């Protein structure tokens, strides 16, 4: 049999300070980027919000020969529109709806005055026209595609559109996720211990904040698909934490002499091959989505990629150290209370539970 990572003895927890400083550094970078961008006058917003969140301009164009979605998208990218939403009209095959986000430094569509909005729509139209000019001349004014055979397309309508995902939807998503985390917190506390529950949930927060940091620093577009990706990341991160906690619980039941510190290290090492294989497979699949999945899914796949890597990392770097640190504190407090000279640190609370399984033959 092929075996990866047999008998590894890496001191993961010994490196916790490096890990935690790294995480803090990245989150600080995210914070600086978000706050800096938000408050720089004339600059971009903290996040590069897409049409879904911010609204924008919708241009309806009628073509003599409608180019493919990809060609249209490439042309728009060339004209400086990073994230257009292109919807072809299936009952009028020569028409396409092109939605582009608000131009930078504009306030939300909902708060704009009519003049501002007019200017936005006009600017949006100009940009789209610049892009579409690569497919032929525009039939401007009263000219139609029929009357002038040299023209290639005509912009038949422009309008501003509001956000699909207003602040209400966003808040609802955040609220639902937080409630979901509360559920996770209680269940892990019930199955393991409060310290593990806190570790796992803080690791989830860490992962989400880190992903958001990446999005603000690199100004990747935030659209509705990113919400889906973040939900996935939360699930994966919790899953990963529990696999390792489960091993810790099992080892604690067998080995009551070792310290929690070494047992956790051993548990991470014992499950390392599983972690690497699972995470590796999932991450490689998502990588194929990033590389081959096309422009529109880029935000989604990038968020997933970053989040999945972080999900594994945070189990080792965040969830486990927090659980151990807190148990250590509890152990010390208990020791003082009981005035027992040897602090019963190693007897972590998880081990106090009766373990119903057969002891491992070892």
């Amino acid at each position, binding site marked *: 049999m092929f075996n990866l990572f047999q008998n590894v003895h890496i001191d993961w927890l010994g490196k916790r300070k490096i890990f935690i400083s790294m995480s803090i550094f990245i989150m600080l970078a995210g914070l600086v980027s978000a706050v800096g961008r938000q408050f720089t006058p004339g600059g971009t917003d903290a996040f590069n919000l897409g049409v879904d969140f911010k609204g924008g301009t919708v241009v309806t164009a009628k073509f003599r020969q409608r180019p493919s*979605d990809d060609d249209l998208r490439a042309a728009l990218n060339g004209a400086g529109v990073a994230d257009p939403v292109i919807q072809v*009209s299936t009952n009028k095959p020569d028409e396409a709806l092109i939605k582009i986000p608000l131009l930078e430094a504009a306030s939300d569509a909902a708060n704009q005055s009519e003049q501002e909005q007019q200017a936005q729509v006009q600017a949006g139209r100009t940009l789209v026209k610049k892009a579409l000019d690569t497919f032929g001349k525009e039939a401007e004014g009263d000219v139609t595609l029929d009357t002038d055979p040299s023209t290639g397309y005509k912009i038949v309508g422009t309008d501003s559109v509001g956000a699909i995902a207003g602040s209400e939807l966003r808040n*609802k998503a955040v609220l639902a996720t937080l409630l*979901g985390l509360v559920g996770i917190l209680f*269940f892990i506390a019930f199955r393991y211990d409060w310290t593990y529950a806190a570790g796992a949930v803080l690791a989830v927060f860490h992962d989400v904040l880190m992903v958001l940091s990446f999005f603000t620093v690199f100004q990747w577009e935030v659209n*509705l698909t990113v919400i889906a990706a973040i939900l996935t990341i939360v*699930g994966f991160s*919790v899953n990963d934490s529990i696999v390792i906690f489960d091993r810790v619980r*099992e080892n604690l039941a067998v080995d009551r002499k070792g310290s929690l510190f070494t047992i956790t290290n051993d548990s991470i090492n014992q499950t390392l091959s599983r972690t690497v294989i699972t995470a590796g497979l999932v991450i490689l*699949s998502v990588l194929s989505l990033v590389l081959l999945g096309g422009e529109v899914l880029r935000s989604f796949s990038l968020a997933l990629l970053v989040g999945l890597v972080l999900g594994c990392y945070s189990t080792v770097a965040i969830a486990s150290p927090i659980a151990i640190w807190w148990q250590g504190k509890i152990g010390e407090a208990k020791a003082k209370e009981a005035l027992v000279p040897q602090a019963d640190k190693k007897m972590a609370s998880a081990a106090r539970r009766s373990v119903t399984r057969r002891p491992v033959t070892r």
Partner: protein
Amino acid sequence: MKRKGLWISTAAILAITLVGVYLVFGPHGRFPSSRDFTWAGVKDNLAENINLGLDLKGGSHLVMRVKTDEYLKTLTENNAQAAVTAAQDAKLPVTGSSTVGENGNYAVALNVSDPSQNQAIVDEVKKKVDFNTWTESQGGNAITWSLPKAQQNVLIDQATKQALQIIETRINKFGVKEPTLQRQGSATSGQILLQMPGVDDPERVKTLIGSTSHLMLMKVADGQFSFDTKEAAISSLGGSVPPNRQVMPYREREDNPPGSTAQQNQKPSKWMIVETPAIIDGSELNEARTINGPGGAGNYQIEFFLKPAGAQKFGEWTGRSIGKYLAVVLDDEVKSAPVIKGQIFNQGTIEGKFTREQADDLSLTLKSGSLPAKIEYQEERTVGPSLGADSIRSGVEASLGGLAFVILFMLFYYRGSGVNAVVALVLNMLLTIAALVLIKSTLTLPGIAGLILGIGMAVDSNVLIFERIREEIRLGLSVEESIKVGFERAFVTIIDTHITTIISSVILYMAGSSSIRGFAVTLILGLLINLFTAVFVSRTIFRWELSLRPNMKHLSI
């Protein structure tokens, strides 16, 4: 070796697989024909069975406009009427009113016969009518309130927002899944853009959205009950309709004799004079539902219940109006005019010989509240997927590539046992999709994200089990023992990870909006099915191996 239990497990797995295959690839609602066994037939069935959302498949695109000008006009007229009534009730010298309601000008003018009383009239009217944001002017025999442009815009904005909310409630209740609704145009354009994935009956949805469903309970004016023509009704009022009266069409009904249809039995339209303002209107409605009327099919009625405040008002009025007629008015047409026999508080019926479908739609729209104004459709088209057909194709290709890689790796790394994992994975995906088909869920990108996480956790379950079996083998256990212990140990981990994720997904489902629900549903289904595929199915395959080769020394893992 006793294999009876093993055969039963295997038969159960095969049966479930067959059901899954039929749900996903088979025809629904008809018997399979020979075409269903061809590649093209299977493809068609697949496309029909899986409902894809707007982002993946496209749907209809409707731009509508709330007739905000009409809204302001009605508001002005209602205010004028209320102002006249308020002043006359206080015995102040107001003879009538005139209104302006066009081209962006909305104003109410009261005709006063004694200008010295102007201030008293203003005070009295303002107690009853909300003119706070209107510009007031007094001049001789007239008091005028006009609505400033800025205030008009505020009202238009509010009306559009309200309409958007009501439309959202209606289409959600109707069962249109995963629609997107957004405002289009400027804040004062009153435009709303609705995109919804393939709806079977778009005309019905359009009617449903567009019906104002304005319910009013009004008093039928004393005197003649109904008139043959509108003119006759007006002339009985002395040639013109006073502000506190309205003439409305009324179709008299009769119970259907058995065998006749509602249409055959309809009587010609009549006219009726009712008193304004209405006793109460639809905003006081608490609940509305379809009930069977006398005469059976084709004669459904709508029963409604009033909120406490409305019930109070209605009870007071019916208490002192015994023997009078009540007009149940829906969208400016009298639907029925029963005589009040006793005090009624919170309940009533609308009798109108509705079909089941009409009655259901009507009770739905009544419950969602009435639209502030009528809606007109400005643009209607069908659109392709918002994620773009090209990018969906490349996304699907990339995902299939990723999946192929996972399968190859499992076969390479776990060799013989990799087959178990591959069977479990493929069966997991098949059954998850079958479950989605079964519950008629609409698949959107968040749903696919749930599917991806589910598959990821399925891979993880297999890896956990296999790694554990390997560990036990390394510790010197026999093949049979290793498999047994490996499954038992890994199962504890798997059940913990799965239950945790299912709990949080159930909460997401309860608290989230439709797209988040899509994620939660596919994830919950995927995980439940994974407990079956990764544990039970994979275990059964191992049991077969052990049963066929009882003295196996080396497991291919």
